[in-house]
């Protein structure tokens, strides 16, 4: 028998059978990448924008207020937490550690919490915060695009949000994302 090296049918390339396979592979890659993405991590449009202004009472001292303006000229971290948030307990030791290192001041935003619950939670798990602002209604949270605590922001000397972390702050995030960013921001005017 002669080996077939000519096209069996006139005018058709013999490689055409590979087309469906190629299409399938392309689709598989596309879907594979998509499935690997986390839909809960909604990219924030606030990165690169000025941190929204607000004035809230402080958690421990209801008569005193806090506003982000007070932090101008410093690189700082805003951490949104709540006593009813289970995941916050997971990241809390990391924040306590970070606060001890003195790299940057951490301000807490106590989101949709009763004052006494927030205070009790900090007493129990430790307080890494220079102070916590008490956002009882959650209005400030909405301004910051908060939809699932814990959420953490790094804000630069000019009051611009430079980084947002949705979810727990892990030691890897601290060492790989936050600390390098803070060094860089501290070098800025």
């Amino acid at each position: 028998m002669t080996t077939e090296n000519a096209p069996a049918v006139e005018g058709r390339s013999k490689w055409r059978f590979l087309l469906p396979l190629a299409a399938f592979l392309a689709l598989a890659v596309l879907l594979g990448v998509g499935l690997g993405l986390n839909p809960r991590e909604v990219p924030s449009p606030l990165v690169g924008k000025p941190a929204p202004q607000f004035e809230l009472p402080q958690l421990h001292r209801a008569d005193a207020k806090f506003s982000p303006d007070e932090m101008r000229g410093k690189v700082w971290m805003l951490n949104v937490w709540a006593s009813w948030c289970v995941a916050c307990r997971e990241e809390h030791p990391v924040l306590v550690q970070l606060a001890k290192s003195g790299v940057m001041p951490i301000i807490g935003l106590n989101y949709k919490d009763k004052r006494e619950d927030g205070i009790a939670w900090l007493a129990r798990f430790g307080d890494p915060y220079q102070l916590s602002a008490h956002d009882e209604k959650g209005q400030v949270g909405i301004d910051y695009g908060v939809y699932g605590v814990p959420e953490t922001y790094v804000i630069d000397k000019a009051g611009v949000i430079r980084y947002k972390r949705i979810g727990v702050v892990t030691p890897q995030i601290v060492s790989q994302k936050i600390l390098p960013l803070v060094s860089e921001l501290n070098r800025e005017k």
Partner: protein
Amino acid sequence: MLLAVVLPAAAGEAAPAVTDAALEKRVMALSEELRCLVCQNQTIADSHAPLAVDLKNQVREKLASGMSERDIIDYMVARYGDFVLYRPPVKITTLMLWFGPPLLLLSGLWLFVRTVLRRRAGKSRPLSAAEQARVRTLLDSAGGDRP
């Protein structure tokens, strides 16, 4: 009579029912365009998540204060991004999302039609001289009867 006029204002009572109903309609209509970011497949109109309730209240307050629907949507997108829109906007980044499925459907249909038509045409297409020679060779080697 005077009391009836003064009391509602002092007590901060809700506005008369007529205004409420019209406002509620607008709140619901707008809420159906906004996604609940916690239960991500629901609108804030449907979802019972605390965030959804908060956002709906925000929408109501803002509509009552005179903000337009367009402004409220911009407000939400500025804070939560495009994902907060229940219907993804048609942008360069979402072209595949909007036009991909119809394109796939059309190309599938086209392939199907082409294949069926070719099969029909193929049956009655006469063999070329080269193909006839091959047929003869194959039949000979197979040991069949000559036509």
